[in-house]
């Protein structure tokens, strides 16, 4: 769709490196973050104290090629040491397209089918033709080992040396690309898993072991997560090796290149660790967006935000409240992933979503998408109306086009084909408005899932709208949810890459303990022991990332519940954590029962090593009048009437400028629509803050 051209912009100056915080961060190295998306690969980097953006076309067949091109483009003038951090979709795509390695699985004998039965439920209730994904490991490749551990960790059936030897022999015959090992209750007693893994590794196999990946209860979720890890290991290590070699080549002979990868939990790790635990990188890309959104919101002074990242085919939403929230109940490609991931909810509605009428006359939008090929009608080849076409018809995306005019839009074509498709709708405009309303309803529902359904009122939050289409929908969506503030960051198209550039090194460790606690003080000693145990493991890993223990910040958390409950709430493991749990329960579910017994189910620790972070500079304040940014006004359909509407060029808006809706703000990689009743201002960091009463 797009010519293979590199588009570069300078976005700020005066970057000062933070204090050196790690042995492995070379202050002389150039720092780069690369976010691979479906259409573009975005790079943000710091050179000569300046933060720059480069966008190159993505290469979906092999995403490393775009990275190679970007590195070549950035470093063509001079080689030098490099510090590259990547957000990657390689893991997600390998899962979605089932292109992972050939995995064998060792389980407790009698439980080989756990991974196939799953939770025994079907994904759709009334679909007689429902299917579920084939297990990643076929039946013949699941081997049962004679062993058994009880719920309290006692060994019921020991794992005999002869049994491990038998299984290793089987594996030698099967020749899998990787082996996953998951025994029942291994979180309570990992001895058997350890012995099995040792034997397999000695025989030269790449092994993913459940108590190393996720020492938590619920065998199906743990097995599935471990298997996904094994499944992705060959793909991911190949990919990362390729990136490392591109980076090394770009750095040149005498310089060093360090490659790190964004994880789904919002932290980064070295390529070496990511190759070993690829399951932790599945939501790598969207995680960068969350970090970016959190950063710009903090600059603007907002702690409580809902991030709204709307791209071409899907939309990612997340709720942040000072801290980023993680969840252990994610589903990716219909498979459960139980390692901590940022709590991101994705829906199949984006700029390219297709609109149609169903048989009984209701208007539907998505989840089918025109994608990049053929794309929306206005791109010149698509035939079916999309959300983007609706915006074009209503005049919200001026025909000047995208990417600073590099990409023209065909409004007449959109209008002509939508006229044919409008069915019984009164007019093309009514049809277009209908498409937007339905798309907004889908996204409103997505935001409700992460807010209202979990006990948070969206009115207390600022909506951070980014991605190619986020700012076109932000204000109307906010209105529907009665949110009164929308923040459109300075560079909506590269926010994910900026987030990645600012990410810290993070290691999550956890263990199921299931400890009854009456009062916090009584359980402290036992918990301290358990925390010390998991933290020593985490600190070892952090040393490998270049952080000595004194440079590591540790957060301790507990998953707690009332005895008898089956799901947990996570609270900080400090002070009166039992009281904190009652309060959290009250807040989330509307009641607490201080008389009821409480248990700590899992201990969790998050180890963080701070990286040097580029900061966006403050701009000098200009006057309130945005006249300098005005371009030719255009008619835009608003509330069924065509009204002359101010169009602003974002590049020429200055800190301190104020304007009122209706207005459209155009910029290089995004468009913002400001409806009547909304007012905009540009803050000191050149974020646009849109507000209504």
């Amino acid at each position, binding site marked *: 769709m797009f010519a293979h051209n590199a588009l570069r912009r300078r976005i700020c100056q005066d970057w000062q490196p933070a204090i050196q915080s790690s042995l492995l961060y070379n202050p002389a190295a150039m720092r780069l973050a690369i976010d691979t998306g479906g259409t573009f690969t975005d790079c943000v980097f710091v050179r000569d104290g300046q933060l720059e953006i480069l966008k190159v076309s993505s290469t979906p067949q092999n995403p490393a090629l775009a990275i190679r091109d970007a590195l070549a483009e950035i470093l063509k003038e001079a080689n030098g040491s490099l510090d590259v951090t990547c957000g990657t979709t390689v893991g997600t795509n390998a899962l979605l397209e089932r292109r992972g390695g050939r995995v064998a699985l060792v389980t407790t004998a009698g439980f080989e089918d756990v991974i196939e039965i799953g939770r025994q439920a*079907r994904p759709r209730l*009334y679909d*007689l033709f429902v299917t579920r994904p084939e297990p990643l490991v076929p039946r013949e490749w699941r081997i049962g080992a004679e062993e058994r551990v009880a719920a309290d960790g006692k060994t019921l059936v020991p794992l005999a040396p002869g049994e491990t030897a038998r299984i290793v022999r089987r594996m030698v015959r099967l020749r899998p690309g990787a082996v996953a090992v998951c025994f029942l209750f291994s979180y309570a007693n990992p001895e058997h898993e350890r012995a099995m893994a040792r034997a397999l590794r000695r025989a030269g196999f790449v092994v993913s072991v459940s108590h190393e990946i996720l020492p938590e209860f619920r065998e199906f979720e743990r097995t599935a997560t471990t298997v996904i890890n094994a499944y992705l290991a060959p793909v991911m290590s190949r990919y990362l090796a390729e990136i490392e070699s591109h980076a090394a080549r770009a750095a040149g002979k005498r310089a060093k290149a360090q490659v790190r990868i964004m994880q789904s939990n919002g932290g980064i790790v070295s390529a070496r660790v990511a190759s070993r635990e690829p399951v932790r990188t599945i939501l790598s890309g969207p995680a960068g967006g969350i970090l970016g959104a959190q950063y710009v919101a903090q600059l603007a002074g907002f702690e409580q935000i809902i991030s709204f990242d709307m791209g071409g085919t899907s939309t990612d939403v997340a709720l942040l409240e000072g801290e980023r929230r993680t969840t252990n109940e994610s589903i990716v490609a219909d498979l459960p992933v139980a390692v901590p991931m940022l709590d991101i909810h994705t829906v199949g509605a984006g700029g390219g979503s297709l609109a149609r009428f169903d048989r009984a006359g209701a208007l539907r939008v998505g989840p089918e998408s025109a994608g990049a090929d053929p794309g929306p009608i206005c791109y010149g080849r698509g035939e079916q109306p999309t959300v983007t076409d609706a915006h074009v018809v209503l005049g919200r995306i001026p025909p000047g086009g995208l990417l600073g005019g590099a990409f023209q839009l065909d409004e007449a074509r959109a209008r002509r084909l939508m006229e044919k498709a409008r069915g019984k709708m009164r007019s093309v405009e009514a049809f277009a408005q209908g498409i937007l309303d339905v798309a907004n309803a*889908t996204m409103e529902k997505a935001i409700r899932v992460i807010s209202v359904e979990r006990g948070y009122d969206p009115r207390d939050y600022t909506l951070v709208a980014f991605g190619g289409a986020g700012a076109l929908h932000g204000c109307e969506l906010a209105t529907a949810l009665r949110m009164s503030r929308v923040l459109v960051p300075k560079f909506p198209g590269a926010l994910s890459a900026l987030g990645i550039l600012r990410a810290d090194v993070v290691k999550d460790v956890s263990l199921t303990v299931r400890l009854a606690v009456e009062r916090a003080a009584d359980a402290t000693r036992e918990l301290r022991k358990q925390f010390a145990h998991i933290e020593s493991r985490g600190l070892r890993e952090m040393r490998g990332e270049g952080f000595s223990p004194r440079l590591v910040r540790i957060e301790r958390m507990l998953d707690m519940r*009332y005895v*008898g*409950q*089956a799901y947990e709430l996570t609270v900080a493991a400090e002070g009166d954590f039992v009281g904190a749990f009652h309060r959290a329960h009250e807040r989330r579910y509307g009641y607490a029962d201080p008389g*009821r017994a409480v248990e700590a189910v899992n201990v969790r620790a998050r180890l963080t090593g701070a990286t040097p972070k580029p900061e966006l500079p403050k701009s000098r304040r200009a006057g309130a009048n945005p006249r300098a940014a005005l371009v030719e006004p255009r008619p835009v359909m608003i509330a069924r009437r065509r009204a002359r509407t101010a169009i602003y060029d974002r590049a020429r808006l200055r800190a301190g400028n104020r304007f009122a809706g209706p207005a459209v703000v155009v910029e290089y990689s995004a468009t913002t629509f400001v409806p009547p009743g909304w007012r905009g201002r540009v803050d000191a960091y050149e974020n646009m803050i849109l507000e209504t009463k």
Partner: protein
Amino acid sequence: MTQSFDPTRLEIFKNLFHSVAEEMGAALRRVAFSPNIKERRDYSCAVFNAAGDVLAMGDHMPVHLGSMPMSVQAAVQALRLDPGDVAVLNDPYEGGTHLPDLTMVMPVYFRGARAPMFYVANRAHHADIGGSQAGSMGLAREVFQEGLRIPPVKIFRKGRVVKDVLALILRNVRTPREREGDLTSQIAACRIGERRLAEMVGKYGRREVETYERHLLDYSARTMRAMLRKIPDGTYRGEDFLDGDGIEPHRLRIAVAIRKRGTRVEVDFTGSAPQCAGSVNAVEAITWSAVFYVFRCLLDEQVPATSGLMRPVRVNAPAGTIVNARPPAAVAGGNVETSQRIVDTLFRALARAVPDRIPAASQGTMNNLTFGGADPRHAPRLRSGQGGAPFAYYETIAGGMGARPGLDGLSGIHTHMTNSLNSPVEVLEHAYPLRVRRYGLRRGSGGRGRWRGGDGVVREIELLADAQVGLLCDRRATAPYGLSGGAPGAKGKNELVVNGKRKRLAAKCSFYAPAGAVVRVETPGGGGLGSLARAPMLSTGGLWVKKISPGRRLESRQSRN
């Protein structure tokens, strides 16, 4: 059929009502205490208009959803529900289905109006509601033996818990703390539904909301009529059998005639067996649920599941039969077993009309398993006196799905009227004195055919303490049928292993077993579809339709065994 509505608004209101039901469900699941609700998700939530028509249901348990309107009706007829009141009920003969399912109904008033504008309701399966057997799912001859029977009463009045009612309920059940937690969560879910609906009316205005309620119901009805139009007119008959009621030694017939003319359909159960001595009697609400489920399956998944769908459908279930039992018949199994067989019977009849859209029989049972006793690992409670804290555990076991035209059936999965999750082994063994010895697929149990039926499951559970065990299963004597020459699925099997000796158990039984005994359940496979010898069938187009002419009972041969 004029389209006087705005298609956009319609879609928006559909989503809004649905998200209210889903939010209620999310709250219920999160707050509840029992694994049965939280891990297994055996609950449902729905939103009703002032007339008691369903506007939206969460994607929960099919057997609950079709029958909830009767709960709302019963509550409204029996009580005056003021703002802030919540009614609870479980009486199968007054709005309920079987006793462990407790339903809560709450009215939603808008700004001082005199009549409610909506009702919200939810239903959850409680692991015990008293009665002669732990788990309240055992053999019985009368509903009185099955547990505590609750007519519509207020458990929440003007925003406060009615303590006497709660105390009365809790005194009659084996695990009161858990029940209290679950009941509280059901009330919380109602209040969340109430709050969300009030917000919605505040935002869109009463008139707009009521207009779109109507449009939504009409839209559902229109969708159903459009689907019915495509089924050839005619009368389609089907019959199938339950193994028995666990008391009398004979099997029980379910018969149906589906008479379809134009855009209307009548579903007539005349000829079904008289109500029986045991507990497999279904009340009318269940039969209604099964019919609703079957016709809902013929529609696109996106269609809003409102009461409007059933407008073109009439159900005739003669009173006094196992599809419309009268008091004091026992009913625990009607909800879980008979409901499945009604679905099998309906699909068998419909296979004659639209063979390219109908699957062979799935396992046709929920394999209900209950354990109860005292857990020696925990200190005894004051009143229970001996052996440890009382426990009651309930689970259902998945089986094979019937083959579909063009697709094999899935293995080890819940089908039709249930979709509850399993309890993880690592949760089960931690919480109860039980040990899972084996949990796997029962290879080769799916019926052979051009498309294979899915395999059932083998599950072995060892008792670590003396316990009362209950089994309520079916398809142990009659196999899940195949269609169009496909073989039937394997029948299920229940066994008890004590000291290494295997003993065959009845499909429905309850007994005391000592610590160390192992209960082994093999669940049925799904039926196959299409004969292996025949050339590949087309799953679309008229060719396949011609192969079965109405009246040629191709598939009935496989089911008799």
